[in-house]
């Protein structure tokens, strides 16, 4: 399996990372970040990035240790057959569930705000068909699509919060003080889900051109996501105040809606925003599901034909999975549960992998030295 072409550049990896991270989460982040922290909610994304970056560092380390192999290969090599296989299975399952929930959240936003008469199923099916089409192609296509869509995502996601600062009341951000650090930790554990998507790098790093700077790509990606989330939260707090944010289902969408009177050249900004946002959700779900299907292919050591069939077959359970939550309250509680599970898979497993690998390296080094000694 090592004969796979490795041709992802640093910038392509960065764009895969950014567009996997920025997705549905950006619409609800102002609310979730301020829930416990109130006016200090902007600490949420910062605490989240601190947690996530440990795992990212671990993934970069693993990527450098095992160039050209995905988690499917290196997990069993580090943890041994049984546990490694279990981890691979959990990872694939998590990606699958996460893609389902994300697709459902996407459908909910579209149904509540734009197309109230359209059945939810239709919206989800169209999205999934598009994703399925992506999944039928080779992996370079994913990189190219991400690279192509990234400017559409970069520019507006920074511009919109900045424009909305025009109706901001900065006193809403004060007083500058933290009631308890425990709450900051809790919010951090909650908001780190914004950055999930980085774990897909365990797949995509395998295709980096030899010499591509993995660390550089991840640092750029993480810092960009941090900046976007941070200014979105700050814009939410300053425009609405944290009390009002608790009452809004999709605070960022409301933010876009009230950003029209500023005399900007565009009125009714929200349609433009939604168009861009659809693209960003597509890349998120696409990257997730592609990683799932591609790792299945690697796992069973099959070819592109297997991947195509899997892509088509897997859409059926995925579609029914998206319809499991019966209402929006249930949907948000599922999201909460998935966050807790995701913590194990996206944080703990990569870190454990990296630690084990590091110790093994040290041990091996020690043994080599011993061997040399023994030889002389």
């Amino acid at each position, binding site marked *: 399996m090592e004969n796979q072409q490795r041709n992802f550049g640093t910038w392509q990896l960065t764009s895969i990372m950014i567009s996997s991270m920025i997705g549905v989460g950006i619409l609800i982040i102002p609310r979730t970040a301020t829930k416990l922290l109130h006016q200090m909610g902007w600490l949420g994304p910062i605490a989240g990035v601190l947690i996530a970056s440990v795992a990212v560092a671990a993934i970069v380390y693993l990527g450098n240790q095992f160039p050209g192999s995905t988690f499917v290969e290196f997990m069993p090599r580090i943890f041994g057959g049984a546990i490694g296989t279990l981890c691979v299975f959990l990872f694939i399952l998590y990606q699958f569930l996460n893609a389902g929930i994300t697709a459902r959240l996407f459908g909910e936003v579209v149904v509540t705000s734009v197309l109230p008469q359209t059945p939810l199923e239709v919206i989800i099916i169209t999205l999934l068909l598009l994703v399925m089409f992506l999944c039928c192609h080779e992996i370079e296509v994913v990189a190219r699509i991400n690279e192509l869509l990234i400017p559409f995502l970069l520019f507006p996601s920074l511009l919109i919060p900045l424009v909305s600062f025009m109706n901001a009341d900065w006193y809403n951000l004060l007083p500058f003080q933290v009631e308890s650090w425990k709450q900051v930790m809790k919010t951090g554990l909650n908001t780190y889900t914004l950055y999930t998507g980085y774990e897909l790098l365990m797949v995509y790093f395998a295709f980096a051109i030899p010499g591509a700077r993995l660390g550089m790509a991840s640092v750029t990606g993480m810092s960009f996501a941090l900046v976007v989330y941070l200014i979105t939260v700050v814009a939410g707090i300053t425009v*609405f105040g944290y009390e009002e944010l608790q009452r809004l289902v999709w605070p960022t969408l409301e933010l876009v809606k*009230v950003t*029209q009177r500023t005399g900007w050249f565009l009125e009714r900004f929200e349609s433009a925003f939604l168009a861009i946002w659809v693209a960003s959700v597509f890349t998120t779900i696409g990257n997730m599901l592609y990683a799932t299907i591609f790792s299945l292919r690697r796992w069973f050591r099959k070819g592109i034909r297997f991947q195509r069939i899997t892509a088509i077959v897997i859409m059926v359970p995925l579609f029914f999975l998206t319809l499991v939550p019966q209402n929006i309250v249930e949907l948000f509680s599922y999201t909460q549960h998935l966050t807790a599970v995701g913590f194990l898979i996206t944080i703990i497993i990569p870190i454990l992998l990296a630690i084990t690998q590091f110790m093994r390296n040290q041990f091996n080094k020690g043994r080599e030295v011993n061997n040399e000694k023994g030889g002389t």
Partner: protein
Amino acid sequence: MGKSFRYFALLIICTILLTGCWDRRELEERASVLAIAIDQDEKNENLYKMTVQIPIPIKIAGSSGKGGGNNADAVKIMSVTGRTVTDASNNLQMRLNQRLFLGHTRILAVSEEVARKGIQDIMDSFRREPQIRRLLWPIVVRGKASTLLEIKPRIEPIPVVFLMGLIENGMKLGRIPDQTLGDYFNQTSNLTMEPFLNYVEASKNEVSWKGVAVFRGHKMVGKLDDMQTWILLQLRNEKPGGDIVITLPKTKNGYVSFRPHFAKKKVIIHNSSSATFHCELQGDIVELTEDLKIPAEQFVLQMQALIKKEMENRAKKLLQQVQKQYNSDILKLGLTLRAKHYQDYWKTHNWKEDFRDFPVRVTYTIKLRRLGMEMQ
């Protein structure tokens, strides 16, 4: 053969899938509500009476050609009753041939009577409805709210457009506060402040802005007249407000008019036990009905002192009313206190009650810049 068949299939698929939204409705197929007025029903106290204004597209298009012959009929005004707002709009739908569309609603008029009873129950449906824009203007109307929709201004074919122009223009001049529905929502959620809404009076052919209605919670508790509102605008939003006409002392019938162009304010809180608003007004003398026959240098100083005294008196009256009578912090003083004196004041006080007794002073600095086109 294969290729042309493929193109043909693509063509067929495109014609089926790219026909547009399946549930689209053309503009003239909707009953666009431009304004909603909510009153209490005369016969039954528990019912709301909802009046809507719907423009008739053909009449508007025709009126420009005919030179506005029968302007009055360019809109249709309908009244329905219901137990809640949604109930009333359901009843309204039964009397309309097209689907009601609230996306273009710009004015929400509430009668003083309803506002004094509280409008939380009315606002709930406006919070939930995704079509409603947070940028529409809620207005409290003296007497019946429906009179506001029934005016015939003649200058504009659609009464609501006239009213919108009136508010928008006043906003640009800095005389009418820009209080949108979103602001109202934010201010009612926010723990530090109270909302206020524009207050108008409508007669048969005209509408006139009369100041603002002050709320406490969701209940209207009183009103401020235009001059007091201008002080409020200066102290709260740094808007100049309207012209100030003062009787000249020691003259029979002399008046001086001062037109502020720029307002700047600064709030200083002393030892978290009292507050001072410093307000600086820059402006011109625009009218002087009696010659005072004093040197110009002295005249400027005298006028500045006179205007300063008058403004401070008016501000004192405003504070008296807002604090003692209404006990409603529409000045955003609470926000400043929470932002800057969280530990030493905010934590130990209940602002909703303590605002009444918080000592507030206002000082003005008048900077008389020009005397119009006259030398004196």
